[in-house]
């Protein structure tokens, strides 16, 4: 039994943490929140210079060819520091999609640039309120022309390339399209989000030049596989954030006195923090399972991904809400940083499908797993 990260991986964690403490302190997150800085002014470049964007990209494509354990370690630290960056869109989604479905030419064209940070990628699925399905997608790719509106699209304002889920030309489900966002026929406008530290846009494709990524009509199956992989990485971000929220709440509760003693000595607060710890531990251990399934490409990946995702949503939602509650009135003020987690958690709870979708996927995987 060796169900733990390796020494090298823990070393990387220290490295990532001290890097982010230095380059992505709360003051930076706040500057972005206040609109004094844009999301990716230069943090994305520094992250790329650390090689984080290249972690799992094969060496033949200019990557480091490291395992997903390393990427999970980095993701947790990104979550802990509530990093206001395009890292997740570019690495967990665009880069993953290209590695999953890209042709040799597409990989050669984009992976080296994404790995080096020279290019930023993103993923565009939603077209409006509610769940996207192959049945309700409207965006189309016909004759190499992409047409339709995607909203919201994370990081479109800084991204060079996007993987777009489109209605299959043959009407037999969905396909994936690869589009150069800097090309003509692409227009976008920024939109206000519940978490302003993550830039999103509404993107209109008006006959923009685009090509298929993966086979015609395979888009939905590919998207589900892509989201399973991304779910593990986002779950690590959520667990990192949930731990930071618990640390923040604990520190405040120890120093804040009411009726002559620290509020941390009242059972209402003690048990609240204990519950955070319990939910965080459950979520983290499931993320270990997710990391293992991702790193070993296990058949269990769909189950592991859904389990990690559901646990992580519960943990971060609870921790970010009760972190504010523990702070009382001050936690509700703009001056305090509790809001970082409260906003980020809500965003991460819906960005790749909400709780209900993943609970449903979990049962599909767990019960079919029975049958098998």
């Amino acid at each position: 039994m060796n169900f733990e990260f390796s020494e090298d991986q823990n070393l990387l964690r220290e490295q990532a943490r001290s890097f982010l403490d230095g380059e992505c302190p709360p003051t930076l997150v706040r500057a972005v929140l206040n609109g004094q800085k844009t999301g990716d002014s230069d943090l994305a470049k520094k992250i790329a210079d650390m090689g984080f964007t290249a972690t799992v990209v094969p060496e033949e494509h200019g990557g480091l060819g490291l395992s997903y354990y390393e990427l999970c370690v980095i993701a947790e630290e990104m979550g802990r520091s509530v990093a206001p960056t395009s890292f997740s869109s570019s690495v967990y989604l665009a880069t993953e999609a290209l590695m999953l479905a890209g042709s040799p030419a597409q990989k050669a064209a984009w992976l080296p640039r994404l790995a080096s940070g020279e290019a930023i990628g993103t993923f565009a699925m939603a077209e409006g309120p509610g769940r996207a399905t192959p049945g309700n997608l409207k965006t189309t790719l016909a004759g190499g022309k992409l047409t339709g509106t995607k909203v919201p699209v994370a990081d479109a304002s800084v991204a060079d390339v996007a993987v777009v889920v489109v209605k299959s030309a043959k009407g037999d489900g969905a396909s994936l399209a690869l589009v150069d966002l800097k090309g003509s026929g692409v227009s976008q406008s920024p939109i206000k989000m519940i978490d302003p530290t993550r830039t999103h846009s509404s993107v209109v494709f008006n006959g923009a030049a685009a090509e298929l990524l993966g086979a015609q009509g395979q888009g939905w199956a590919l998207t589900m596989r892509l989201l399973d992989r991304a779910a593990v990485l986002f779950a690590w971000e959520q667990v990192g954030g949930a731990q930071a929220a618990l640390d923040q709440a604990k520190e405040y509760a120890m120093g804040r006195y009411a009726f002559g003693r620290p509020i941390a000595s009242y059972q209402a607060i003690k048990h609240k923090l204990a519950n955070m710890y319990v939910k965080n531990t459950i979520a983290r251990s499931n993320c270990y399972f997710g990391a293992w399934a991702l790193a070993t490409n296990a058949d269990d990946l769909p189950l592991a991904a859904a389990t990690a995702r559901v646990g992580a949503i519960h943990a971060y939602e609870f921790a970010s809400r009760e972190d504010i509650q523990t702070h009382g009135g001050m936690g509700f003020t703009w001056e305090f940083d509790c809001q970082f987690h409260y906003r980020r958690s809500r965003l991460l709870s819906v960005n790749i499908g909400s709780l209900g979708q993943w609970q449903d996927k979990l049962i599909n995987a767990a019960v079919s797993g029975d049958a098998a």
Partner: protein
Amino acid sequence: MDFEDSQEEARFRTEASAWLKANVPARKELEGLDEIAASKLWQRRKYDAGWACIRWPREYGGRGGSAIEQVIWNQEEAKYQVPGGVFSIGQGMAAPTLMTWGAEEHKLRYLPKLASGEEIWCQLFSEPAGGSDLAALRTKAEKVGDEWVINGQKIWTSGAHYSDYAILVTRSDPNVPKHAGLTYFFLSMKTPGIVIKPIKQISGGANFNEVYFTDVRIPDSQRLGAIGQGWQVSLTTLMNERASIGAGGGGVGFRQAVKLAQKLTIDDKPAIEDRSIRAKLADWFVQESGLKYTGYRSLTALSKGAIPGPENSIGKLVGAPKNQEMAAFCIDLLEEHGAIWDEELSEAKGMFQLSYMSSPGLRIAGGTDEIMANIIAERVLGLPQDPRADKGIPFNKVPTGSN
């Protein structure tokens, strides 16, 4: 058991609704007026016609009515979009305190102008170090001749920036136990030495202020209650605050959530048909309905002359977390699009997102969930207090940690 008014109640309701129908200002009439001006216009009109502050004695500008008449009036007035709210602290909390503890000339001088809306009051109680432990306040009051000199800071003061007067609790003696060293005043907000800073909330709003005092002088004649009796005076104010704590309401409720679930789809079927959605909605309906009928039961008690008690805490304790959960639930229904908070783009003009960002405040303002549970445990069920580490200790000897 019925939902009907008694004969007298019905008569009052008819009279009230008739007057309202005839006198509620038309939208045009309020055009161009800011909230304060509009509120004052409407309040003055009610005052002149004898419909202001239903329960107050006539000599203080009221109508000399009953508690239930006040409720009926509120119900009827609520049927219209009328300005107001800026008077609630003055009329709801300052006034009852003045009536109980003020000198007759104070009552005659201040209450009618409170009733007419000519003067607005705010409440200077909470402090940064206080929080749930209100009586731990530190703002210093020193007697110099027959004046008091105030230094310190208050926080969470709604309406400080547009108020004319305020009620204020201070620490006049730090060498005695917490509750014994407080003294209570009222003062003009125009008094020199007062500085007001708005507090921005995570919801974007700024309904509250910090208020700083530097050598602010108050004549001893504006003291309410004896020196060191400030806590007892505060309890009068707080009792009335509790009575006025609402259902933690506003924001998203069952109806809005159902509407959304009827509009959105899950796997191309209406979300309202999804059993996991229905189960959650049903439980929330039960909570809303339970609070509604609990309210009807208190009203019945009220109309029989009972005084609203701590059991009203249930409204906030149930309503505030429910509001947070429902807002998150609706954002989840909207999926990725739910993370958009943009008046044009968001469903329902961003009401769900605003609710989510406001709900932490509902769970805290006027007493946190935890304090509400304590109130129910101690004052409704009669369970023992938590051990009090500060009991009997001089205030300046009580441990305060880093703050």
